[in-house]
């Protein structure tokens, strides 16, 4: 399948500042794609170069096979949902949504039917006559979506669309956006700094740092097999332990300081493995505390509880294991019959070679 959007060695300078450092990217038709990264990583700049609000300094942006060089935003098959929503406050909801149809050859009744359909899609049927000013944050968001979708763009660009909403509303909108994307089948490109949001919503995610793509993968690969310490740190929580790769054969032999030796599969070293010093990553939920009377066929290390953080459904423990440089963070589901341990208690930690990731450095 050919790419709907194709970026080739895209560079962007603002004066001396190098905002995009050679972005190569292909985004497929119908995909929910996310650009994820900390603020200042260039993700919004990249989105704006696709939209046509920023000209690239060099490189090629192709949409649907067409070179976008010199094509202004109003002539690109993209529409955008802005971070501030950019609702026109002097117009009604219907006038906002129908704004993009001003230049179309539709009759007035066709236009108002299209506006109604678009409003229906985002669950705002009957809101057309209201003043856009009088809407709540979530409703403005929906108007912005309806307004962008009415032109049936090839690509919908979303610039941190949920960041202004409260947590409950955000989670609800995430689900609605996924549903909407499946319904209309349009390619969505989402810019976000919220790793959880990216994991929940995307088919694929590009993690960006300092104007470059650090890793491009589907959410599960990104979470389970991060390609670098940086990506691993940015997405979810992870324990990092110094280790040594002692042998590379059909399996990779690692010696993890404090935990011991183990053999892992090739794909557990997504960036490749080299003999010598390395870092091993372990997610908190792949470790387990063994409570009294519990046994396991996994490997076990002795430790002492250093810190307890209670979340209601989960408890996070920091456990000091002799020989391991920093305490291991372990997350445990709180279940009936399972006590919350106190600081200072001696405990056993179960771990497994299969959950290790070998990272460079």
């Amino acid at each position, binding site marked *: 399948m050919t790419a709907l959007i194709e970026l080739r060695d895209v560079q962007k300078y603002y004066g001396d500042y190098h905002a995009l450092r050679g972005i190569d990217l292909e985004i497929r038709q119908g995909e929910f794609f996310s650009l994820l990264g900390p603020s200042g990583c260039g993700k919004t700049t990249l989105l704006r170069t696709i939209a046509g609000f920023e000209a690239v300094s060099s490189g090629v942006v192709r949409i649907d096979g067409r070179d976008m060089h010199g094509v202004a*935003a109003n002539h690109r098959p993209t529409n955008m949902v*802005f971070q501030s929503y950019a609702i*026109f406050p002097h117009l009604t909801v219907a006038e906002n949504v129908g704004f993009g149809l001003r230049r179309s050859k539709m009759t007035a009744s066709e236009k108002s039917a299209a506006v109604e359909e678009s409003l229906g899609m985002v669950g705002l049927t009957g809101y057309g006559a209201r003043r856009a000013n009088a809407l709540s944050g979530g409703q403005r968001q929906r108007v912005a979506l309806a*307004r962008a979708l009415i032109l049936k763009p090839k690509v919908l660009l979303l610039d941190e669309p949920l960041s202004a909403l409260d947590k409950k509303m955000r989670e609800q909108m995430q689900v609605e956006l996924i549903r909407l994307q499946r319904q209309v089948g349009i390619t969505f490109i989402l810019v976000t700094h919220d790793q959880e949001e990216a994991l929940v919503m995307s088919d694929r995610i590009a993690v960006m740092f300092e104007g470059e793509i650090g890793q491009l993968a589907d959410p599960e690969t990104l979470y389970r097999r991060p390609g670098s310490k940086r990506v691993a740190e940015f997405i979810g929580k992870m324990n990092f332990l110094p280790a040594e790769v002692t042998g590379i054969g059909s399996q990779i032999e690692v010696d993890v300081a404090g935990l011991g030796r183990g053999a892992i599969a090739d794909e557990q070293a997504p960036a490749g493995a080299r003999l010598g010093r390395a870092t091993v990553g372990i997610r908190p939920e792949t470790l387990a505390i063994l409570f009294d009377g519990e046994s396991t066929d996994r490997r076990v290390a002795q430790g002492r509880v250093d810190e307890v953080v209670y979340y209601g459904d989960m408890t996070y423990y920091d456990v000091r294991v002799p020989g391991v440089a920093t305490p291991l963070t372990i997350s445990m589901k709180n279940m009936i019959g399972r006590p919350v341990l106190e600081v200072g208690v001696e405990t056993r930690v179960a771990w497994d070679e299969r959950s290790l990731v070998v990272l460079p450095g």
Partner: protein
Amino acid sequence: MKGGTLRVYAILYLIFLYAPIVLLPLFAFNDATIIAFPLTGFTGKWFGDLWQNAALGSAVRNSLFIASMSAVFATLLGICAARAGAMAEFPGKKGIIGFVMLPLVLPEIIVAVSLLIVLRQVLGLNLSNWTVIGAHVLICTPFSIAILNGAFQNLDPSIEEAAMDLGETRFGAFRLVTLPLVMPGIISSLLIAFTISLDEFIIAFFLTGSNPTMPVYIWGLLRFPAQLPVVMALGTILVTLSVLLLTIAEYFRRRGLARAGLKDTGGFL
């Protein structure tokens, strides 16, 4: 009795501010040539005299023309400056904006003298209504910028981009989205620039040609004591007109803020 003292102070302050202005209508309707108490009786004849005065009529027409032109040009320049200030980024922006606002605090007498020298000695122009208009645009523009800054800074910069994203050209986006949103600011700027130009004396005094503006003509009348009540009548009309225009201007400024759904961050009234 802290509250009591403050109240007395506030009342004295208001009297100090407005008592001289209250005297204007008082003597404008007083049936005596001499401006002094006690009042002798009610009359409307000074307003009648005003109406008959052809020279005054011509001065008023001059002033209205100058004020209208100055208001339009100052507001046009103000729109450009305020838009650039709010939406564009360029090197030295702060310094340039500050420099543009400077005429606001320059002594008018200095501006008047230097303009006279430039216009007469350097450029060799004849003084006319247009020289006054040029000078009034100079002093009104900072006010226009200050008012329009408020209007433009309240605008979400993405809003023009959103219009372009939906298929409008840059100018179309400005016309359809930005302009309606800043329109109250534009009206407010027009009215305030008009008022400033209409009242302005010093610069007009230096730069008028053979046709004086209204304030200059009033100043001329003061040499004839018999004309003083007529001046009072004219003053009454001017004060009423100024208050009216400024009130309308402020109404539009506030409506603009309400339209954009924003908090009031100051203004001239």
